[in-house]
Protein backbone atom coordinates (compact mmCIF):
# COMPACT_ATOMS: atom_id res chain seq x y z
CA UNK A 1 0.00 0.00 0.00
CA UNK A 2 1.24 3.47 -0.89
CA UNK A 3 1.13 6.25 1.68
CA UNK A 4 -1.33 8.19 -0.48
CA UNK A 5 -3.66 5.18 -0.48
CA UNK A 6 -3.85 4.93 3.32
CA UNK A 7 -7.60 5.23 3.88
CA UNK A 8 -8.90 8.27 5.72
CA UNK A 9 -12.57 7.26 5.93
CA UNK A 10 -14.92 9.11 8.29
CA UNK A 11 -17.09 7.40 10.88
CA UNK A 12 -14.59 5.35 12.88
CA UNK A 13 -15.47 4.72 16.52
CA UNK A 14 -12.17 6.30 17.54
CA UNK A 15 -12.56 9.36 15.31
CA UNK A 16 -11.43 12.50 17.11
CA UNK A 17 -9.86 10.50 19.92
CA UNK A 18 -6.95 8.88 18.18
CA UNK A 19 -5.53 8.07 14.80
CA UNK A 20 -4.16 4.66 14.00
CA UNK A 21 -0.64 4.29 12.72
CA UNK A 22 -0.58 2.32 9.49
CA UNK A 23 2.61 1.35 7.70
CA UNK A 24 2.76 2.23 4.02
CA UNK A 25 5.27 2.86 1.25
CA UNK A 26 6.10 6.53 0.69
CA UNK A 27 6.95 8.42 -2.53
CA UNK A 28 10.61 7.44 -2.25
CA UNK A 29 9.81 3.73 -1.91
CA UNK A 30 10.65 3.72 1.80
CA UNK A 31 8.24 2.46 4.45
CA UNK A 32 6.80 5.04 6.83
CA UNK A 33 4.13 5.24 9.48
CA UNK A 34 1.02 7.10 8.31
CA UNK A 35 -1.72 8.02 10.81
CA UNK A 36 -5.17 7.00 9.59
CA UNK A 37 -8.51 8.33 10.85
CA UNK A 38 -10.32 5.16 9.77
CA UNK A 39 -10.93 2.59 7.09
CA UNK A 40 -14.24 1.45 5.63
CA UNK A 41 -13.58 -2.28 6.21
CA UNK A 42 -12.78 -1.84 9.84
CA UNK A 43 -15.55 0.71 10.48
CA UNK A 44 -18.17 -1.62 8.98
CA UNK A 45 -16.86 -4.67 10.84
CA UNK A 46 -16.89 -2.79 14.13
CA UNK A 47 -20.39 -1.55 13.42
CA UNK A 48 -21.64 -5.10 12.85
CA UNK A 49 -19.99 -6.29 16.05
CA UNK A 50 -21.37 -3.36 18.04
CA UNK A 51 -24.91 -3.83 16.73
CA UNK A 52 -24.88 -7.51 17.62
CA UNK A 53 -23.49 -6.78 21.09
CA UNK A 54 -26.15 -4.11 21.65
CA UNK A 55 -28.90 -6.50 20.58
CA UNK A 56 -27.66 -9.00 23.16
CA UNK A 57 -27.50 -6.35 25.87
CA UNK A 58 -31.05 -5.22 25.07
CA UNK A 59 -32.31 -8.78 25.16
CA UNK A 60 -30.55 -9.50 28.47
CA UNK A 61 -32.02 -6.33 29.92
CA UNK A 62 -35.55 -7.32 28.93
CA UNK A 63 -35.12 -10.79 30.38
CA UNK A 64 -33.85 -9.39 33.67
CA UNK A 65 -36.68 -6.84 33.74
CA UNK A 66 -39.23 -9.61 33.24
CA UNK A 67 -37.64 -11.58 36.02
CA UNK A 68 -36.61 -14.46 33.77
CA UNK A 69 -33.00 -13.96 34.85
CA UNK A 70 -31.19 -12.21 37.67
CA UNK A 71 -29.60 -8.78 37.29
CA UNK A 72 -26.23 -10.55 37.25
CA UNK A 73 -27.13 -12.04 33.87
CA UNK A 74 -27.75 -8.56 32.50
CA UNK A 75 -24.58 -7.05 33.97
CA UNK A 76 -22.53 -9.95 32.63
CA UNK A 77 -23.72 -9.31 29.09
CA UNK A 78 -23.39 -5.53 29.51
CA UNK A 79 -19.73 -6.02 30.51
CA UNK A 80 -19.28 -8.04 27.30
CA UNK A 81 -18.60 -11.22 29.18
CA UNK A 82 -19.86 -14.75 28.84
CA UNK A 83 -19.92 -17.59 31.32
CA UNK A 84 -16.32 -18.52 30.59
CA UNK A 85 -14.95 -15.02 31.09
CA UNK A 86 -16.98 -14.40 34.23
CA UNK A 87 -15.86 -17.70 35.66
CA UNK A 88 -12.30 -16.73 34.85
CA UNK A 89 -12.65 -13.33 36.49
CA UNK A 90 -14.33 -14.55 39.66
CA UNK A 91 -12.64 -17.91 40.02
CA UNK A 92 -16.06 -19.54 40.49
CA UNK A 93 -17.24 -22.69 38.79
CA UNK A 94 -19.47 -22.19 35.79
CA UNK A 95 -22.29 -24.35 37.13
CA UNK A 96 -22.33 -22.19 40.22
CA UNK A 97 -22.51 -18.98 38.22
CA UNK A 98 -25.32 -20.48 36.14
CA UNK A 99 -27.42 -20.75 39.27
CA UNK A 100 -26.71 -17.13 40.12
CA UNK A 101 -27.76 -16.09 36.63
CA UNK A 102 -31.23 -17.31 37.54
CA UNK A 103 -31.32 -15.88 41.06
CA UNK A 104 -28.76 -13.73 42.85
CA UNK A 105 -26.91 -15.32 45.78
CA UNK A 106 -27.75 -13.98 49.22
CA UNK A 107 -24.15 -14.16 50.35
CA UNK A 108 -22.56 -10.67 50.54
CA UNK A 109 -19.09 -12.03 49.86
CA UNK A 110 -20.22 -13.61 46.61
CA UNK A 111 -22.02 -10.47 45.53
CA UNK A 112 -18.86 -8.47 46.18
CA UNK A 113 -16.88 -10.93 44.10
CA UNK A 114 -19.24 -10.53 41.17
CA UNK A 115 -19.25 -6.76 41.57
CA UNK A 116 -15.43 -6.62 41.50
CA UNK A 117 -15.30 -8.86 38.44
CA UNK A 118 -17.77 -6.64 36.57
CA UNK A 119 -16.26 -3.36 37.74
CA UNK A 120 -19.42 -2.36 39.63
CA UNK A 121 -20.56 -1.52 43.15
CA UNK A 122 -22.74 -4.16 44.85
CA UNK A 123 -25.66 -1.69 44.83
CA UNK A 124 -25.41 -1.41 41.06
CA UNK A 125 -25.08 -5.17 40.63
CA UNK A 126 -28.34 -5.98 42.38
CA UNK A 127 -30.23 -3.26 40.50
CA UNK A 128 -31.27 -3.03 36.89
CA UNK A 129 -30.62 0.31 35.16
CA UNK A 130 -33.57 2.27 33.74
CA UNK A 131 -32.36 1.65 30.23
CA UNK A 132 -29.98 -0.97 28.81
CA UNK A 133 -26.44 0.43 28.74
CA UNK A 134 -25.45 0.11 25.10
CA UNK A 135 -21.97 0.40 23.60
Amino acid at each position, binding site marked *: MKSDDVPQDPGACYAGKLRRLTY*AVGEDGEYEGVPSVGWE*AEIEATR*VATERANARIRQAWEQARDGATSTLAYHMVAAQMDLMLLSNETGLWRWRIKRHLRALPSDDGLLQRYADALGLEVDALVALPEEPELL
Partner: protein
Amino acid sequence: MSFEHLHAGHCESGVTAALLRHQGLALSEPLLFGIGSGLFFGHLSFTRVMGQPLTTFRSFPGAIFKKACKRLGVRVRRSTWRDRERGMAALDALLAQGTPVGLQTNIYWLPYIPRPMRVHFNGHNLIVLEKRGDSYVISDPVMEEPTECPAAALRRARFSGTNALLGHGLMYHPEVTDQEPDLAAATRAGLGEVCTRMRRIPFVFPWFGVRGVRHLAAQLPKWPVRLGEEDAREWLAGLVRMQEEIGTGGAGFRYLFAAFLQEAGDQLGWPALRGMSDRATAVGDQWRSFALHASRRARGKPDREWAELGEMLAELSVAEDRLFQDLDAVRVAGAKQLTG
Protein backbone atom coordinates in the same frame (compact mmCIF):
# COMPACT_ATOMS: atom_id res chain seq x y z
CA MET B 1 15.34 11.88 31.93
CA SER B 2 12.23 12.90 30.07
CA PHE B 3 10.36 10.19 28.25
CA GLU B 4 9.50 10.59 24.60
CA HIS B 5 6.09 9.21 23.67
CA LEU B 6 6.01 6.91 20.65
CA HIS B 7 2.90 6.56 18.48
CA ALA B 8 3.14 3.05 17.06
CA GLY B 9 1.28 0.61 14.86
CA HIS B 10 1.26 -2.17 17.41
CA CYS B 11 1.16 -1.90 21.20
CA GLU B 12 3.83 -4.40 22.10
CA SER B 13 6.49 -3.55 19.51
CA GLY B 14 5.73 0.11 20.25
CA VAL B 15 6.29 -0.37 23.97
CA THR B 16 9.50 -2.27 23.26
CA ALA B 17 10.80 0.45 20.92
CA ALA B 18 9.93 3.26 23.34
CA LEU B 19 11.44 1.56 26.41
CA LEU B 20 14.67 0.66 24.61
CA ARG B 21 14.97 4.13 23.13
CA HIS B 22 14.60 5.60 26.60
CA GLN B 23 17.63 3.56 27.59
CA GLY B 24 19.65 4.81 24.63
CA LEU B 25 19.09 1.95 22.19
CA ALA B 26 17.17 3.63 19.39
CA LEU B 27 15.70 0.99 17.08
CA SER B 28 12.50 1.45 15.10
CA GLU B 29 9.21 -0.30 15.81
CA PRO B 30 9.33 -2.47 12.64
CA LEU B 31 12.90 -3.61 13.41
CA LEU B 32 11.92 -4.73 16.88
CA PHE B 33 8.75 -6.37 15.58
CA GLY B 34 10.86 -8.46 13.19
CA ILE B 35 13.68 -9.21 15.62
CA GLY B 36 11.09 -10.29 18.18
CA SER B 37 9.48 -12.40 15.41
CA GLY B 38 6.03 -10.98 15.99
CA LEU B 39 4.45 -12.20 12.75
CA PHE B 40 2.30 -15.28 12.89
CA PHE B 41 -1.01 -16.74 11.92
CA GLY B 42 -3.31 -18.93 13.92
CA HIS B 43 -6.94 -19.83 13.50
CA LEU B 44 -8.10 -21.88 16.48
CA SER B 45 -11.39 -23.06 15.03
CA PHE B 46 -12.20 -25.17 18.10
CA THR B 47 -11.92 -22.34 20.65
CA ARG B 48 -14.61 -19.84 21.49
CA VAL B 49 -13.90 -16.38 22.82
CA MET B 50 -17.24 -14.64 23.32
CA GLY B 51 -18.77 -17.18 20.98
CA GLN B 52 -16.21 -16.77 18.22
CA PRO B 53 -13.16 -18.78 17.18
CA LEU B 54 -9.86 -17.11 17.92
CA THR B 55 -7.85 -15.83 14.97
CA THR B 56 -4.47 -14.23 15.52
CA PHE B 57 -2.00 -12.58 13.21
CA ARG B 58 0.84 -12.35 15.70
CA SER B 59 2.67 -14.32 18.33
CA PHE B 60 1.67 -14.73 21.95
CA PRO B 61 1.40 -11.49 24.01
CA GLY B 62 4.68 -10.68 25.70
CA ALA B 63 6.78 -12.70 23.27
CA ILE B 64 7.91 -9.78 21.10
CA PHE B 65 9.41 -7.87 24.01
CA LYS B 66 10.99 -10.93 25.54
CA LYS B 67 12.51 -12.26 22.34
CA ALA B 68 13.65 -8.92 20.96
CA CYS B 69 15.45 -8.15 24.23
CA LYS B 70 17.02 -11.58 24.39
CA ARG B 71 18.31 -11.38 20.82
CA LEU B 72 19.73 -7.91 21.40
CA GLY B 73 21.43 -8.90 24.63
CA VAL B 74 19.21 -6.63 26.72
CA ARG B 75 18.54 -7.70 30.26
CA VAL B 76 14.84 -7.90 31.12
CA ARG B 77 13.36 -7.29 34.52
CA ARG B 78 9.89 -8.75 34.72
CA SER B 79 7.64 -9.72 37.58
CA THR B 80 4.12 -11.02 38.09
CA TRP B 81 2.06 -10.63 41.22
CA ARG B 82 -0.48 -12.76 42.97
CA ASP B 83 -1.25 -10.05 45.53
CA ARG B 84 -2.73 -7.00 43.81
CA GLU B 85 -1.75 -4.53 46.53
CA ARG B 86 1.86 -5.62 46.46
CA GLY B 87 1.83 -5.59 42.67
CA MET B 88 0.65 -1.97 42.63
CA ALA B 89 3.15 -1.03 45.38
CA ALA B 90 5.99 -2.56 43.34
CA LEU B 91 4.90 -0.50 40.33
CA ASP B 92 4.82 2.69 42.42
CA ALA B 93 8.28 1.95 43.81
CA LEU B 94 9.76 1.61 40.32
CA LEU B 95 8.01 4.77 39.13
CA ALA B 96 9.35 6.67 42.15
CA GLN B 97 12.85 5.84 40.92
CA GLY B 98 11.95 7.43 37.60
CA THR B 99 11.81 4.15 35.64
CA PRO B 100 9.11 3.90 32.97
CA VAL B 101 7.47 0.49 33.35
CA GLY B 102 5.78 -1.68 30.75
CA LEU B 103 2.53 -3.39 31.77
CA GLN B 104 0.40 -6.12 30.28
CA THR B 105 -3.26 -5.21 30.70
CA ASN B 106 -6.78 -6.09 29.68
CA ILE B 107 -7.74 -3.37 27.23
CA TYR B 108 -11.42 -3.60 28.24
CA TRP B 109 -10.80 -1.76 31.51
CA LEU B 110 -8.85 1.19 30.08
CA PRO B 111 -11.24 4.16 30.07
CA TYR B 112 -9.30 6.26 27.54
CA ILE B 113 -9.80 3.65 24.80
CA PRO B 114 -12.95 4.37 22.70
CA ARG B 115 -15.83 2.17 23.84
CA PRO B 116 -16.34 -0.13 20.80
CA MET B 117 -12.59 -0.95 20.77
CA ARG B 118 -12.74 -2.15 24.35
CA VAL B 119 -12.95 -5.93 24.20
CA HIS B 120 -11.73 -8.46 26.75
CA PHE B 121 -8.24 -8.89 25.40
CA ASN B 122 -5.67 -9.52 28.06
CA GLY B 123 -2.54 -8.78 26.09
CA HIS B 124 -2.55 -5.02 25.67
CA ASN B 125 0.81 -3.45 26.47
CA LEU B 126 1.40 0.09 27.66
CA ILE B 127 3.98 2.13 29.53
CA VAL B 128 3.37 3.82 32.88
CA LEU B 129 5.42 6.98 33.28
CA GLU B 130 4.52 8.39 36.69
CA LYS B 131 1.94 8.45 39.42
CA ARG B 132 0.10 11.74 39.76
CA GLY B 133 -2.19 11.81 42.77
CA ASP B 134 -4.82 9.16 42.24
CA SER B 135 -4.03 8.51 38.62
CA TYR B 136 -1.20 7.34 36.42
CA VAL B 137 0.36 8.98 33.40
CA ILE B 138 0.29 6.41 30.63
CA SER B 139 2.21 6.32 27.39
CA ASP B 140 0.07 3.97 25.32
CA PRO B 141 1.53 3.46 21.82
CA VAL B 142 -1.97 3.21 20.36
CA MET B 143 -2.64 6.81 21.45
CA GLU B 144 -1.02 9.83 19.85
CA GLU B 145 -0.19 11.48 23.18
CA PRO B 146 0.36 10.31 26.76
CA THR B 147 -2.89 10.09 28.71
CA GLU B 148 -3.98 9.92 32.32
CA CYS B 149 -5.73 6.89 33.73
CA PRO B 150 -7.38 6.58 37.17
CA ALA B 151 -5.48 4.25 39.49
CA ALA B 152 -8.51 2.01 40.10
CA ALA B 153 -9.02 1.45 36.37
CA LEU B 154 -5.37 0.64 35.76
CA ARG B 155 -5.41 -1.77 38.64
CA ARG B 156 -8.47 -3.50 37.24
CA ALA B 157 -6.87 -3.69 33.81
CA ARG B 158 -3.66 -5.11 35.22
CA PHE B 159 -5.27 -7.80 37.29
CA SER B 160 -7.89 -9.35 35.12
CA GLY B 161 -8.77 -13.00 35.26
CA THR B 162 -7.37 -15.95 37.13
CA ASN B 163 -6.59 -18.11 34.13
CA ALA B 164 -3.03 -19.46 34.09
CA LEU B 165 -2.48 -18.01 30.60
CA LEU B 166 -3.20 -14.47 31.67
CA GLY B 167 -0.93 -11.68 32.76
CA HIS B 168 -1.09 -11.75 36.57
CA GLY B 169 -0.14 -8.08 36.67
CA LEU B 170 2.94 -8.59 34.54
CA MET B 171 5.26 -5.57 34.65
CA TYR B 172 8.59 -5.28 32.94
CA HIS B 173 11.40 -2.97 31.95
CA PRO B 174 14.65 -3.50 30.05
CA GLU B 175 18.17 -2.79 31.23
CA VAL B 176 20.39 -1.97 28.29
CA THR B 177 24.06 -2.72 28.91
CA ASP B 178 25.34 -3.14 25.36
CA GLN B 179 24.66 -0.05 23.23
CA GLU B 180 25.84 -1.78 20.05
CA PRO B 181 24.19 -5.16 19.84
CA ASP B 182 24.74 -7.60 16.98
CA LEU B 183 21.88 -6.58 14.70
CA ALA B 184 22.74 -9.13 12.04
CA ALA B 185 22.53 -12.06 14.42
CA ALA B 186 19.35 -10.71 16.01
CA THR B 187 17.70 -10.22 12.61
CA ARG B 188 18.64 -13.72 11.46
CA ALA B 189 17.25 -15.22 14.63
CA GLY B 190 14.00 -13.27 14.23
CA LEU B 191 13.64 -14.26 10.59
CA GLY B 192 14.43 -17.88 11.29
CA GLU B 193 11.73 -18.20 13.88
CA VAL B 194 9.07 -16.55 11.72
CA CYS B 195 9.86 -18.81 8.75
CA THR B 196 9.78 -21.88 10.95
CA ARG B 197 6.52 -20.97 12.61
CA MET B 198 4.82 -20.09 9.35
CA ARG B 199 5.88 -23.16 7.38
CA ARG B 200 7.31 -25.91 9.56
CA ILE B 201 4.74 -26.58 12.22
CA PRO B 202 3.94 -30.31 11.93
CA PHE B 203 0.77 -31.19 10.05
CA VAL B 204 -0.85 -32.54 13.21
CA PHE B 205 -1.33 -28.88 14.21
CA PRO B 206 -3.30 -27.52 11.24
CA TRP B 207 -4.29 -24.28 12.96
CA PHE B 208 -1.00 -22.41 12.69
CA GLY B 209 1.14 -20.75 10.05
CA VAL B 210 0.30 -20.92 6.35
CA ARG B 211 -1.53 -24.20 7.00
CA GLY B 212 -3.68 -22.23 9.43
CA VAL B 213 -4.63 -19.80 6.65
CA ARG B 214 -5.60 -22.80 4.51
CA HIS B 215 -7.59 -24.18 7.42
CA LEU B 216 -9.49 -20.91 7.73
CA ALA B 217 -10.00 -20.88 3.96
CA ALA B 218 -11.67 -24.28 4.22
CA GLN B 219 -13.74 -23.37 7.28
CA LEU B 220 -15.02 -19.95 6.26
CA PRO B 221 -17.35 -21.01 3.41
CA LYS B 222 -19.01 -23.46 5.82
CA TRP B 223 -19.89 -20.78 8.35
CA PRO B 224 -23.23 -19.70 6.81
CA VAL B 225 -24.30 -23.34 6.52
CA ARG B 226 -23.34 -24.15 10.09
CA LEU B 227 -24.39 -20.95 11.82
CA GLY B 228 -26.90 -19.31 9.55
CA GLU B 229 -26.15 -16.16 7.60
CA GLU B 230 -26.49 -13.70 10.47
CA ASP B 231 -24.11 -15.36 12.92
CA ALA B 232 -21.67 -16.15 10.12
CA ARG B 233 -21.59 -12.45 9.30
CA GLU B 234 -20.79 -11.65 12.90
CA TRP B 235 -17.88 -14.10 12.83
CA LEU B 236 -16.65 -12.55 9.62
CA ALA B 237 -16.80 -9.08 11.18
CA GLY B 238 -14.84 -10.43 14.14
CA LEU B 239 -12.20 -11.78 11.79
CA VAL B 240 -11.80 -8.43 10.04
CA ARG B 241 -11.54 -6.69 13.40
CA MET B 242 -8.77 -9.00 14.53
CA GLN B 243 -6.92 -8.31 11.32
CA GLU B 244 -7.30 -4.55 11.18
CA GLU B 245 -8.49 -3.06 14.44
CA ILE B 246 -6.27 -1.88 17.26
CA GLY B 247 -2.64 -1.94 16.43
CA THR B 248 -1.72 -4.23 13.61
CA GLY B 249 -0.12 -1.49 11.52
CA GLY B 250 -2.41 -2.65 8.71
CA ALA B 251 -3.08 -6.01 7.02
CA GLY B 252 -2.65 -8.10 10.15
CA PHE B 253 0.98 -7.01 10.75
CA ARG B 254 2.06 -7.85 7.20
CA TYR B 255 2.99 -4.23 6.44
CA LEU B 256 4.88 -3.92 9.69
CA PHE B 257 6.84 -7.02 8.74
CA ALA B 258 7.52 -5.66 5.24
CA ALA B 259 8.84 -2.45 6.83
CA PHE B 260 11.12 -4.59 8.99
CA LEU B 261 12.53 -6.45 5.96
CA GLN B 262 13.23 -3.19 4.19
CA GLU B 263 14.92 -1.51 7.12
CA ALA B 264 16.92 -4.56 8.17
CA GLY B 265 18.05 -5.02 4.56
CA ASP B 266 19.32 -1.44 4.45
CA GLN B 267 20.98 -1.46 7.85
CA LEU B 268 22.78 -4.74 7.28
CA GLY B 269 23.65 -4.09 3.63
CA TRP B 270 21.59 -7.10 2.58
CA PRO B 271 19.79 -6.19 -0.68
CA ALA B 272 18.10 -9.58 -1.07
CA LEU B 273 16.27 -8.97 2.20
CA ARG B 274 15.11 -5.58 1.04
CA GLY B 275 13.81 -7.22 -2.11
CA MET B 276 11.62 -9.53 -0.05
CA SER B 277 9.95 -6.47 1.44
CA ASP B 278 8.01 -5.84 -1.79
CA ARG B 279 6.74 -9.41 -1.73
CA ALA B 280 5.57 -9.00 1.86
CA THR B 281 3.83 -5.75 0.90
CA ALA B 282 2.02 -7.53 -1.93
CA VAL B 283 0.78 -10.18 0.50
CA GLY B 284 -0.33 -7.39 2.83
CA ASP B 285 -2.29 -5.79 -0.02
CA GLN B 286 -3.97 -9.14 -0.63
CA TRP B 287 -5.01 -9.30 3.04
CA ARG B 288 -6.39 -5.77 2.83
CA SER B 289 -8.42 -6.69 -0.21
CA PHE B 290 -9.81 -9.72 1.61
CA ALA B 291 -10.73 -7.54 4.61
CA LEU B 292 -12.58 -5.07 2.40
CA HIS B 293 -14.72 -7.69 0.66
CA ALA B 294 -15.24 -9.62 3.90
CA SER B 295 -16.46 -6.47 5.68
CA ARG B 296 -18.99 -5.80 2.92
CA ARG B 297 -20.26 -9.35 3.25
CA ALA B 298 -20.44 -8.90 7.03
CA ARG B 299 -22.35 -5.65 6.60
CA GLY B 300 -24.92 -7.32 4.41
CA LYS B 301 -23.89 -5.54 1.20
CA PRO B 302 -21.94 -8.43 -0.27
CA ASP B 303 -19.88 -8.18 -3.42
CA ARG B 304 -18.28 -11.61 -2.97
CA GLU B 305 -19.79 -15.01 -2.25
CA TRP B 306 -18.68 -16.95 0.83
CA ALA B 307 -16.89 -19.42 -1.41
CA GLU B 308 -15.05 -16.57 -3.12
CA LEU B 309 -13.86 -15.24 0.23
CA GLY B 310 -12.58 -18.72 1.05
CA GLU B 311 -10.88 -18.75 -2.32
CA MET B 312 -9.12 -15.46 -1.50
CA LEU B 313 -7.82 -16.99 1.71
CA ALA B 314 -6.64 -20.10 -0.10
CA GLU B 315 -4.69 -17.86 -2.48
CA LEU B 316 -3.24 -16.03 0.52
CA SER B 317 -2.12 -19.28 2.03
CA VAL B 318 -0.25 -20.13 -1.17
CA ALA B 319 1.24 -16.62 -1.43
CA GLU B 320 2.44 -16.69 2.17
CA ASP B 321 3.86 -20.16 1.74
CA ARG B 322 5.95 -18.99 -1.21
CA LEU B 323 6.95 -15.78 0.56
CA PHE B 324 8.29 -17.53 3.63
CA GLN B 325 9.89 -20.29 1.60
CA ASP B 326 11.86 -17.73 -0.39
CA LEU B 327 12.55 -15.65 2.69
CA ASP B 328 14.02 -18.70 4.38
CA ALA B 329 16.28 -19.25 1.38
CA VAL B 330 17.39 -15.61 1.52
CA ARG B 331 18.05 -15.98 5.21
CA VAL B 332 20.21 -19.07 4.78
CA ALA B 333 22.14 -17.58 1.84
CA GLY B 334 22.62 -14.34 3.76
CA ALA B 335 23.80 -16.15 6.84
CA LYS B 336 26.64 -17.67 4.84
CA GLN B 337 27.43 -14.36 3.23
CA LEU B 338 27.30 -12.20 6.35
CA THR B 339 29.42 -14.53 8.43
CA GLY B 340 31.85 -14.97 5.50
